[in-house]
């Protein structure tokens, strides 16, 4: 079955840590068109924050680069893509393991991907070392009859 796209947005911004809040607020405001519950919006905010933070910290450790977000609304689902043109990930399976981190000196917990996997319905990570990383997540928004 082909899902029909209802709405789409793209954004990009400097990989600065003070953009983390703005990024998750924007995606949440966009997704709120599907009338999600407070719980669903909170899950989306947290997951976006994880993916964006990763691009800021891991993709561009010593420079400012661009972080890109694309969000698509379907009838009952939101798809969110967070990407960068940064360092890339060598071993994606390893990176997705709980508690795995390459930045314990920065007090990273290695729980970013685990949280995205738990809070969203689907998570896909694509990465090429030296070229960048793209994280695609989807979440079903259950229709509440009120």
């Amino acid at each position, binding site marked *: 079955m082909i899902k029909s796209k209802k709405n789409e947005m793209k954004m990009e911004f400097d990989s600065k840590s*003070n953009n*983390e809040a703005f990024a998750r607020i924007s995606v949440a405001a966009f997704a709120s068109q599907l009338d999600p519950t407070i719980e669903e919006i909170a899950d989306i905010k947290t997951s976006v924050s994880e993916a964006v933070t990763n691009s800021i910290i891991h993709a561009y450790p010593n420079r400012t680069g661009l972080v890109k977000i694309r969000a698509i609304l379907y009838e009952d689902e939101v798809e969110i893509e967070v990407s960068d043109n940064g360092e890339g990930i060598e071993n994606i399976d390893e990176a997705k393991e709980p508690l795995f981190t390459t930045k314990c000196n920065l007090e990273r917990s290695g729980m970013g991907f685990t949280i995205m996997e738990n809070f969203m319905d689907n998570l896909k990570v694509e990465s090429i070392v030296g070229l960048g990383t793209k994280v695609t997540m989807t979440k079903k928004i259950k229709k509440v009859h009120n």
Partner: protein
Amino acid sequence: MNVKHFIEDKILLFEMTEELDHHNTEKIRDRADYEIQRFMPKRVIMDFFRVKFMDSAGIGLVIGRYKQVSAMGGRLELLNVSDKIKKIFEMAGILKIIPIIDVSLESQRKE
């Protein structure tokens, strides 16, 4: 972040800010480290009363303080942890080593 010292009991209480993301935890960490080194507390309490948003940066912040406080023979406790935040801590398995306390501290406060 607000910091409260309970001098007699050597308790240090940190009131976390509203949004615990990577951006904000960096500032909190620096302040907390400074206070802990200066005050050498027996107990450090991180109070999540105000927290409206937390991602995995909050886990890193808690684990980091746990290591620091334990190393100097002190104890770390978490206060006013909402269900949402609890779920995030549970994923990381840290509630097995760091206790959540539920009692209101108000009664024992001597600042």
